[in-house]
């Protein structure tokens, strides 16, 4: 039996269908990613799975317990790391952990041990007595995770845990999660950062507009774009919209998008096309600085599937 | 630069006036408060007459004398009752301010030079000091009359043999002679003159009365502190940095904000003054120029102090806590709540450090004593001094943030 089974979960707010009937499964020991742009419905899904809001229809089962009927049981099995640092700013890390541990029903020596434990996992043991409002953004996120670990959950659910975090803390967090997973923790990880999801997750579901539009391992998803390559060309000058349109019109090119001082082109036979593209650029007076031929990433998958960009 | 200062000020005003919480403190609360206090210490009955209940059990005629002497006093209305329990109830319900029971043997005791007691019923609920004084005077009058009649008769008897049957008549005659010294008013009397402006109401600045200037002063301070300092605290510690990157000098910013508070306080004070004048009947109009001077200087002083406060607090919650604390305590000490005279001497000295003291003192000079501008110049100067010192302190302290 899958650790998490989601069956046709739906939630609307008025006329807006935030989540429109999604289903997926997470196996024990997996790190499962939920990838999608802001507004895709990831947070709403998480809120339903954490039993914070009631779905309009559908159900989900954590270790066999229904979020509709056995929410208390579900809560005992999951740890939630929400998007916001929902802690008491004037209390110390230790005090926050103790309090929430109590909320999870931990007491006495068991509580103390667990608190020590999670502090060590996130590497904040020596700063446990400081008030949360003195922590940096990265540290706050780490404590956030620590709280999620308090109930020794079967499933850890994280919602955009690295937003606004410095690169070092981010790496730290990702490494920690990988470690925990190696020790047997199943993780549901949502983000709109492609690199993290690619790094961390065994399987990924891509969400857009409340629906899951693709699901599978990274390789499986890449295959969705077919035998396509991702060309990345960085330029010295700006690339005009007309130029992008021109590139798009080239047969075999499926998508092209402009980033800062570079352009990404999703196309078949990337290597073969390169000379043609370089020529077009040359004619337009664009100076090319470097060229990369990459395997398509999740951004390209997303772009291919939806015509939109993952990141705003 | 002036235009920028002005703009910042107007902006502050706008933001504050839109803030419903600020409006509560600026206007709603002071108005409610003034009405509450005002209805409490005002005259007891609308027509300013004081009812006194009397039960006259006297067998003779002098009991009614007592009644009529009392009735002659201005503003007293005698209510005749027969039953003691009924009278006691009236007193308890404050339907009469006091009750008097003249005993059966009143006239007899007078004639026998024997002391007699009139029972006075009063309740803690109504302050009857004034009435008791009047009653005491009437009692004294009758004592003197009776003593004189007795004395005269006694001494006469030592000189001339007075036949028993004539005695009552002589007594009564003597009584009348004595009593003549009390008409139309006591022959030896005290001429009491309060050096104040003629008021429509009897009592001027008595007890807790005449609180309109005092409470207005308190609420203006609270208003400026609450609305002003609170606002600025947020801004200074959140957005001041941003403001400073614009081509606006720190001086302009602070001046603009202060101008904003100042206008706020001024408008608030004006509204409270008008309210006091037209709704509570306080006469602020004796010297408009004097009132203007005091108002402006007081608001300046409060603005300065508010600015000083804003240097020390970081959030509006903190500003709120201090605003209420400082305003209430300095107002109490400074004489906003009660006449300074009832406080111990050392407290009265401390009071001089509060702006409220100088404002209330100044307003009383104008409203109560009826003086003009020149009398409040010293108050004006002190308030301006407070303003300057606190502003200076704010600028200096803020620099080292």
């Amino acid at each position, binding site marked *: 039996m899958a650790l998490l089974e989601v069956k046709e979960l739906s939630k609307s707010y008025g006329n807006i269908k935030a989540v429109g009937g999604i289903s997926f499964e997470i196996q024990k020991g997996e790190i499962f990613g939920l990838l999608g742009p802001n507004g895709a419905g990831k947070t709403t899904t998480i809120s339903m799975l954490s039993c914070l809001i009631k779905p309009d229809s559908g159900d989900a089962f954590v270790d066999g317990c229904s979020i509709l009927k056995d929410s208390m049981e579900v809560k005992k099995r999951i740890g939630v790391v929400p998007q916001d640092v929902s802690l008491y700013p004037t209390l110390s890390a230790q005090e926050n952990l103790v309090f929430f541990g109590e909320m999870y029903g931990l007491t006495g020596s068991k509580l103390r041990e667990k608190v020590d434990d999670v502090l060590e996992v996130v590497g904040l043991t020596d700063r446990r007595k400081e008030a949360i409002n003195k922590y940096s953004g990265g540290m706050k996120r780490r404590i956030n995770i620590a709280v999620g670990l308090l109930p020794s959950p079967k499933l850890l659910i994280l919602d955009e845990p690295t937003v606004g975090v410095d690169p070092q803390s981010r790496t730290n967090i990702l490494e920690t999660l990988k470690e925990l997973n190696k020790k047997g923790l199943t993780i549901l990880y949502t983000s709109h950062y492609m690199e993290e999801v690619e790094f961390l997750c065994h399987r990924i579901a891509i969400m857009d507009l409340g629906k899951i539009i693709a699901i599978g391992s990274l390789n499986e998803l890449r295959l969705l774009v077919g035998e396509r390559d991702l060309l990345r060309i960085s330029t010295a000058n700006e690339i005009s919209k007309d130029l992008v349109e021109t590139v798009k019109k080239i047969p075999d090119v499926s998508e092209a998008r402009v980033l800062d001082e570079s352009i990404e082109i999703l196309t078949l036979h990337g290597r073969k096309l390169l000379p043609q593209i370089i020529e077009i650029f040359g004619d337009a007076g664009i100076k090319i600085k470097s060229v990369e031929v990459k395997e398509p990433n999740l951004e390209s998958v997303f772009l291919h599937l939806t015509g939109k960009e993952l990141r705003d | 630069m002036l235009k920028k200062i002005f703009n910042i000020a107007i902006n502050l005003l706008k933001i504050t006036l839109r803030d419903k919480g600020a409006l509560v403190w600026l206007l709603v609360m002071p108005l409610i408060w003034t009405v509450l206090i005002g209805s409490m210490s005002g005259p007891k009955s609308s027509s300013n007459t004081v009812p006194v209940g009397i039960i006259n059990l006297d067998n003779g005629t002098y009991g009614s004398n007592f009644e009529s002497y009392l009735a002659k006093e201005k503003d007293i209305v005698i209510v005749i009752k027969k039953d003691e329990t009924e009278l006691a109830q009236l007193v308890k319900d404050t339907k009469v301010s006091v009750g008097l029971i003249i005993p059966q043997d009143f006239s007899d005791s007078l004639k026998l030079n024997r*002391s007699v007691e009139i029972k006075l019923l009063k309740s803690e609920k109504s302050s009857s000091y004034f009435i008791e004084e009047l009653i005491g005077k009437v009692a004294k009058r009758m004592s*003197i009359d009776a*003593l*004189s009649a007795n*004395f005269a008769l006694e*001494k*006469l008897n030592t000189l001339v043999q007075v036949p028993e049957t004539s005695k009552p008549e*002589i007594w009564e005659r003597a009584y009348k002679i004595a009593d003549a010294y009390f008409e139309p008013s006591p022959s030896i009397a005290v001429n009491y003159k309060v*050096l104040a402006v003629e008021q429509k109401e009897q009592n001027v600045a008595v007890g807790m009365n005449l609180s309109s200037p005092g409470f207005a002063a308190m609420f203006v301070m609270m208003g400026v502190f609450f609305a002003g300092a609170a606002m600025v605290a947020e801004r200074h510690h959140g957005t001041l940095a941003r403001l400073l990157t614009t081509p606006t000098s720190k001086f302009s910013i602070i001046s603009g904000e202060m101008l904003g508070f100042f206008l706020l306080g001024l408008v608030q004070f004006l509204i409270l003054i008008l309210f006091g004048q037209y709704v509570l009947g306080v006469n602020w109009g004796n010297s408009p120029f004097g009132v203007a001077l005091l108002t402006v200087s007081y608001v300046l002083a409060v603005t300065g102090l508010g600015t000083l406060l804003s240097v020390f607090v970081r959030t509006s919650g903190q500003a709120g806590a201090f605003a209420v*604390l400082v305003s209430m305590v300095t107002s109490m000490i400074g004489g906003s709540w009660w006449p300074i005279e009832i406080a111990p001497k050392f407290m009265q000295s401390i009071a001089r450090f509060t702006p409220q003291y100088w404002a209330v003192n100044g307003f009383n000079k104008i409203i109560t004593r009826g003086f003009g501008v020149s009398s409040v110049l010293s108050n004006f100067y002190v308030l301006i001094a407070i303003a300057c010192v606190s502003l200076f302190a704010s600028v200096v302290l803020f620099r080292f943030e």
Partner: protein
Amino acid sequence: MKKIFFIAIKDLKLRARDFYAFILLLVMPLVLILVLGIVFKPMWTSTPFVIDMGVVDFDNGEFSKILINDVFDSDDLKSMLNITFLDSEAEAKDRINQGKLAAVVILNRGFSDAIMAGENASIEVLADPEQSIKSGVVKSIVESYTLEVLKRRTMVETFLGTVAPYSSVNPQDIQKMIPEWLKEIENEKDIVLVKSSTEKKSTNEIPAMGYYAVGMAVMYLLFATNSGAETIFEERRLKTYDRIRTAPVHENVLFGGKLLGIFLVAFVQFLIIVIFTALFYGVSWGKSLSGIFILMVSSVLAFSGFSTLFASIAKSEEQIGSIGPALSMIFGFLGGGMWPVFLFPQWMNVVSKFTPNRWALDGFLKLMESNANFAQVLPQCGVLVMMALLFFLIGTLRLKARGV
């Protein structure tokens, strides 16, 4: 459920850490009680205060001297009256206008002569309108003097008037006896006495400090419970509610914990104020510990309920923060915490009964004044608890509907 306690304790901890809450909830009431107690001490216990007054003596006659030397300088009044002798009425008015003298007694030329001659005479007293209590005292002192003088003169004059028709009496004989008689008259006591019987409820007199300790402590309860109510919004904002909800905690447990937290913070505050004022301000809260305790509990319950109701109506933390103190002050006033209730007009008295403050105050005053015991404050406790139930009911329903 243990979790209710954990939540409440957490709230208590948070409040205890907050410096500004400390100022608002503890420092302020204690300072106010102190100020009020000090200021009102003389008035309440009628400790004599000192009156600065002036005397202008144009008369220099016998009766003026008696007033100045025998009356003002008597043992009774000597310590109370601080007399400055002035030379002119203008000077007198000047000093009064400056607030330096509460009253000035002016004895006009010919005063004593007029009295001797049996003519009308008067003493002028000029008063400072801002010191009406003190000038009133001066007035009554001078008045009792004039009445005494009047008494003597009247008695003598009455006799003379009575004896006049008797031609057999020799005027000169009478003249000789008058000095003796005057001595007799001196000892004549008043015949007509007025004796008051006040509805005295109290066996103990409560000093000002005690009265205001109760009034302020009760008023500040609302500050405390309101700050607790603010945290309802705060936790929404911090999203810590959601955090707690992702743990296996029932809605009702969460809510109960919050309410208990509001109660605890206010109760602790009240306790501290009671103990502090008892230890350092010398306030006696009464002899019945159980009475005090149950009244404290009922009062805190009532206010906790009120703040819960308030939280269910308010739209934001800031609203509670700004309207809250205003409500506290108004309730505090209406409950009789600042001015004694017996000064209220009838309508205000009625309105006052709708505030928890009034009932709490009545209960505590009973305990303090009449040494009431537990049973005697049960009525007040009953009303407070009923108010609590009503407030809690409505507040809870509304909050649940909105989703705490």
